[in-house]
């Protein structure tokens, strides 16, 4: 799964995140080429539409901070746990270098940004994954940050919103990455037992160990249009079942048709939709002290 996504991503990479590998025929930074319809768009215009292609509606990948900007009431988001540092428990060669390089490029300490802030005037806790950092894969720090965000929500009686964007478990951390699935799950169970709201928003891609843990068990599961959502990788499945899979296989629309999602929500309606759902669950404004 991871490798499959990786090659795909190199091809589809949106160029607002400069990268050494990005080879594009448009100047990096100023212009962005839509990977779907090939339309060339001014990067600053793209942010006005929350990084949705004005021509074909393709939802570009977003950084975690871009999502904060699109979703949270201005200046209300406070990030947390930016000090946690990834280790190399199995001593995999070049793992630390890769993490360091992604840190540099994204400005994040790991593949998820967590914190609290207001959406439509109501305080919530959030975890926003960023697939520009190691494919958004979940290792110890990602699991820990999400768990702490959920625990904070539990302590303060807040809803938790998790935006998933992940190829799955972080292979280089072996069993520890698998155990993050259990860790985030026990925290979510406790949050749920307090009668608190969990909204899971699945974005491109939500697969493997992330799809098979917190992302799939929101009280409300929503996804962005065409987001890739699934457990196993397409190629692995094609090899197993020896048949060609339909084009829409494992898209958000496919998951909606198969009963796995409450709704597919266009990015321009995301804030409004989340805000409405939160209002329907939280009666009075919760201010965190």
């Amino acid at each position, binding site marked *: 799964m991871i490798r499959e996504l990786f090659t795909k991503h190199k091809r589809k990479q949106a160029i607002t995140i400069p990268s050494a590998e990005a080879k594009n025929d448009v100047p990096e930074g100023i212009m962005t080429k839509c990977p779907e319809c090939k339309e060339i768009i001014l990067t600053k215009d793209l942010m006005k539409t929350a990084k949705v292609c004005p021509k074909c509606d393709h939802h570009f990948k977003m950084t975690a901070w871009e999502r904060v900007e699109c979703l949270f009431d201005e200046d209300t988001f406070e990030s947390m746990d930016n000090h*946690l540092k990834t280790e190399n428990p199995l001593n995999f060669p070049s793992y630390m270098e890769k993490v360091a390089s992604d840190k540099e490029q994204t400005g994040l300490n790991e593949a998820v940004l967590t914190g609290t802030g207001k959406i439509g005037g109501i305080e919530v806790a959030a975890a926003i994954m960023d697939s520009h950092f190691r494919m958004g894969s979940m290792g110890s720090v990602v699991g820990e940050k999400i768990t702490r965000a959920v625990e904070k929500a539990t302590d303060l009686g807040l809803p938790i919103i998790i935006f998933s964007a992940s190829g799955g478990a972080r292979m280089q951390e072996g*069993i520890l990455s698998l155990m993050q699935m259990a860790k985030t799950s026990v925290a*979510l169970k406790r949050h749920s*037992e307090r009668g608190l709201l969990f909204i899971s928003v699945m974005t491109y891609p939500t697969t493997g160990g992330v799809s*098979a843990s917190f992302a799939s068990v929101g009280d409300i599961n929503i996804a962005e249009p065409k987001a890739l959502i699934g457990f196993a*990788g397409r190629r692995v499945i094609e090899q197993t079942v020896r048949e060609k899979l339909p084009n829409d*296989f494992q898209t958000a629309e496919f998951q909606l048709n198969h009963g796995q999602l409450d709704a597919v929500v266009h990015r321009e309606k995301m804030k409004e939709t989340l805000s409405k759902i939160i209002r329907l669950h939280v009666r009075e404004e919760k201010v965190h002290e």
Partner: protein
Amino acid sequence: MSKTLTFEEPIIKLREKIKELEEFTNSSEVDLSKEIENLKIRLKNLEEDIYENMDPWERVQVARHPERPTSLDYIGELFEDFIEFHGDRVFGDDAAIVGGIGFFDNKPVTIIGQQRGRDTKENLKRNFGMPHPDGYRKALRLMKQAEKFQRPIICLIDTKGAYPGKAAEERGQSEAIARNLVEMAGLKVPVISIVIGEGASGGALAIGVANQFLMLENSWCSVISPEGAASILWRDASLAKQMAEAMKITAPHLKEMGIIDDIIPEVMGGAHRDPKKQSEFIREALRNSLAAFEGMDGESLIEDRYSKYRNLGVFTE
């Protein structure tokens, strides 16, 4: 004739030689009993030398031995009056997971196990022990039933992973696994999970959020099979042997890392060499584990599971 693993060959050769000499002694006047005695001592030393120093890849071979006892083999040995229950009440009955109730030391328990086939025909029926969502949902149904009747739950893990198939995706493989993780976190009865063979990925963990997580000495547990990891990280599945070492997937490694609670010893050479004796080792471990949670109330059991999984992870502040 039992399947010989490559690293066992010197032992097998020596055993054959002893047998030959014994037959020769019986059919002739020459007395070779002294030589045979010496060879038997050598055999014992060789067995200890090889079997007690298995490297991770050799353990993986033992864990995959075609005659390795399966969940149903242990269930038959360990539980009285076992009765199997079927179906998830939603879609179907997945034969890759078996479950039911029985007596353990005269107390009712719920047993859930991933089930490989013991031959090709059974493997087809049981999908090589790789469950569909229906299997996980059956498991959860039986766990909730156990909770209602206050029975401890014993889970036997033995899977290469959840099945990566079209139908599995259509019926929500991700959700089925994820749901189990969350719901197991909240169970008000003790849960003991034991890896008896292979334990790969979320497909294994989906019956593994337990108060005690144990492994048989030669079983392995990982986020992905060593072949899968080698093909993703090193672009070469043939480096599985090196990967088995690097990923730390064996019981001794995982105990050392504080991931598992304990190792259940195996019969010398692997569980398949004496399933009955192996069952006794498991019985002993289960007795100890169940005794540790005897009389603990539901909230404390949930708390215990919380702190166990909450603390897993390696990072710096």
